[in-house]
């Protein structure tokens, strides 16, 4: 059985992720403290909330250190969802500058409207265009719609880390990858069939 730690830092749509992981054949274990990340097969960092609060909560619980040990040193497969992907950055700019986990070089900045019809909160279904092949999207056709809800996005310094982009407010990175580390800006747990396929793909890494 695939044990998946769902990192709980007090600000997330925990139940949705847990149920989705279980539907996809994983055994979800909610991790609220350092020791609970030991011995799992993979780790999901979900996220609703704001960048600074999320980092503070992770660090108060010793979870940032545990994540570094498991994901960076032990190379356990990791998936950051929405804010959980943004936290991979070196820096966030939501409500002041805050340091992120710093695994992916780049910063998190606000979406800026490019077309008159665009709204500054990107809420709803939008397509994901692959910029390179990734196991995460196995069996899912290019341009499939996923569900997004965010107003900030991760700008990677190294475009090689960008696995997929989405056309909105210009274009932003909707999926990133660095070795065992994956991040998606959309919510796979709420993206029905395609979203569940992403989770199944992640669980089989």
């Amino acid at each position: 059985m695939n044990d998946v730690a769902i990192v709980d830092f007090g600000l997330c749509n925990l139940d949705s992720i847990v149920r989705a992981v279980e539907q996809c054949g994983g055994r979800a274990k909610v991790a609220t403290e350092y020791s609970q990340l030991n011995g799992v097969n993979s780790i999901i960092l979900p996220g609703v909330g704001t960048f600074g609060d999320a980092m503070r909560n992770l660090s108060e619980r010793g979870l940032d250190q545990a994540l570094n040990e498991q994901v960076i040193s032990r190379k356990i497969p990791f998936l950051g969802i929405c804010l959980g992907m943004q936290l991979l950055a070196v820096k966030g700019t939501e409500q002041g500058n805050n340091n992120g986990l710093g695994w992916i070089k780049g910063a998190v900045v606000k979406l800026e409207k490019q077309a008159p019809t665009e709204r500054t909160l990107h809420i709803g279904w939008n397509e994901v265009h692959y910029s390179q092949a990734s196991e995460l999207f196995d069996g899912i056709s290019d341009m499939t719609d996923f569900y997004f809800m965010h107003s900030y996005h991760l700008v990677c310094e190294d475009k090689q880390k960008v696995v997929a982009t989405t056309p909105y407010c210009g274009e932003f990175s909707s999926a990133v990858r660095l070795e065992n580390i994956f991040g998606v800006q959309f919510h796979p747990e709420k993206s029905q069939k395609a979203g569940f396929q992403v989770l199944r793909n992640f669980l089989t890494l």
Partner: protein
Amino acid sequence: MLKTRIMPTLLHKEVGLVKGKKFDSWRQVGSAMQAIKVYNMREVDELAFLDISATPGRRDPDFDLIDNLADECFMPLTVGGGVQTADHIRRLLSVGADKVCINTAAVENLEFIEEVAQQFGSQCITISIDAHIGSDGGYEVVTCCGKIPTKLNPIDHARNVEARGAGEILLTSIDRDGTMTGYDIKLTRQVSDVVSIPVIASGGAGNYEHMLEALTIGGASAVAAASIFHFTEKTPLEAKRFLHANGIPVRPV
């Protein structure tokens, strides 16, 4: 391209789903669980679940009920009714809501929006505005499920909630609610013109043309509807086919 959302709205009152006209004459329309299972199977874009008896009855949100419903809901779920505190929001998100909908509390205390938007992020704070045409012929915000007129202008209120960090506005015309005579396009246009966050038009959909009007003339980013799906043979999927044929980007299902 961002797809236009068609959102069925489920109104819950005491033990089951209801639908009324102009926020009155409520009719029972079945069980919430059954409706959620059907919409889940049909893969609708998003669902709004509003407990309309919570605030008038001075109740907290029914967390156990939401927990049970969310267990069957693998589509985005916005939950409203009785949301008064940051703790309510934290608990709703933790049992499976993706966004929360705040109405009365946002009128009573604008700072509340700021507090919770900072804590949970704007993206999960939907402000619901119920408005009607008042005795002086102008629009007026009404809180507490159509019970308390506020003298507040919905256009000003929309501007204020956006400034405080609201992520989205669910705008319902009480006059059109349940009448199936079309959305209040003028109201929708006026509100969507003054904010840069998405506005969801609600109240009055009786056919797919009404939805098209709310999106094109009204400037709405999404449409919510209830009666049309409860009382007619029309479906969100057919609505999407119609909108697609008329140049509106929708998600293929």
